[in-house]
């Protein structure tokens, strides 16, 4: 059982339901999503067949800006960044290279990046957005649901907005009103209305 606020697998097949509880727990743990997902309700009916996952996310940290990960000081033409958290160093370098050209960006050691420019740096460099964890997180959540769902269920509809997500899949064509008729009911169990 993953340590979520709410986690239920609803299934007409007892053995299969238990197996899916284990699968969901393993997948969420493998993809490191246990800290991100707050509530998750999974509904599977192999007779129809249909798979629904509805859930709520915890509060996700926003965009990472340069000032969050480095101390910036200017010495004449040189802007020196002392990196305090190197998690997003690679995307930072890519950003600097594309904006200021490669020959102007130097990294004398692991925790220092030096930008050499003749004219002053336009705008406030500290405000530059380096990475947005939400972008990959949404992709990861949909991937996790795809991974949990039975494999043959290739027809799917997915949604992530704010802190609400759902994923519905089947091997047959999904009815147009599936979200209103089935998914909305599962989301209501989590106290959410779309």
């Amino acid at each position: 059982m993953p340590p979520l606020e709410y986690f239920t697998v609803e299934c007409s097949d007892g053995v299969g339901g238990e197996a899916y509880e284990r699968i969901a727990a393993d997948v969420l743990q493998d993809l490191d999503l246990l800290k991100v997902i707050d509530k998750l309700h999974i509904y599977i009916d192999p007779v129809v067949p249909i798979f629904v996952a509805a859930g709520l996310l915890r509060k996700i940290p926003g965009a990472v800006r340069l000032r969050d990960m480095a101390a910036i000081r200017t010495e004449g033409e040189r802007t020196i960044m002392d990196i305090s958290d190197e998690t997003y160093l690679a995307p930072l370098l890519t950003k600097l290279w594309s904006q200021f050209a490669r020959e102007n960006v130097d990294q004398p050691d692991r925790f220092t990046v030096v930008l050499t420019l003749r004219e002053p740096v336009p705008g406030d460099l500290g405000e530059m957005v380096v990475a947005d964890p939400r972008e990959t997180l949404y992709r990861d959540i949909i991937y996790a649901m795809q991974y949990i769902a039975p494999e043959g269920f290739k027809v799917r509809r997915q949604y992530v907005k704010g802190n609400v997500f759902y994923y519905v899949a089947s091997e047959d064509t999904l009815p147009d009103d599936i979200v209103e008729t089935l998914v909305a009911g599962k989301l209501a169990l989590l106290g959410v209305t779309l």
Partner: protein
Amino acid sequence: MTVLVPITYKGGIYRHDDIIELIEDLGGYIVQKHVLAQEVVLQSFVPRDDVEQIRRIAKPLAGEVKESPLVGTEIAVISPSLEIHHLPHTSCDIAEYLRQAGAKTNMVGLARGFGKRIANLNREERDVINEHDLAVYVLGNFAECIEHKFPVLQRGIEVPIVITGAPDRETLQKIVDPPVDGYVGGIGRIMHRFRRPEELAKLDEIVAEVARVLDARREVLANDPLSIFPARLKDVIEEKVYEVATLTHPTPVTVQMTGVRVKLPYDDYAPEFRALEIQDGVAIGDIAEVLPSRMRNYIIIRIKPYSETGVMV
């Protein structure tokens, strides 16, 4: 006629040649030899009465001899697809465990084996599976899906089948129609390695079930013995066809229950194999069919029974 039993010898690399020579002198055959760092694993057939003697001689070398019913068989482990849903955990763990029990296992990932209504088995897959001694189907969690899809997945399969799935054994027996040869319940799609005691017990159950099915098949074969023992045919091929020694496959000549698979191109080598003399003017072509394998461009040699050829070498 001496009865040969399948055994696995596990011991150090030091003086393992003595054991190989001993097995050959006793009239046994080495089916496969693995050298793993300082350890050697020999899968072989030896006369039943001599097992104790090998055990005695192997003792000072710290060698261990144990009977492994799956030696000399080639088993297909069939996964509904090659996607992350089925691989690596369930299928690979089962294949690996069967390998430890002595079998040569091949994984067959179906192109469209997933789903309930949409599951399919194409001709190439069917032919490849039929080239094995036994097929283990590794299926999923829902009885409903297995019931619907399995008739399609086993269409045209002539080799014995063992099916695994999450429903228990009795449920599997009830829903699988037409019935198959073996059932192991309680293993569905899982997303972690088999490591808990109850999961490892399930793997043992699979080995036992596969061994039971193969033993039954061996009994049927014993009623009308083959014209040559497959492991002997392997020895002859390895001795007489120089090119086999140049192959880098782990088992260039794979022993099956009723034949061998040779990993040389069919078009170039088939005539040579048909004409290859085994003993006293008897050629492979006289007692076996040399056929193109559906697996790459290999050759599959199917040995005919004594009743058909009237020759025993």
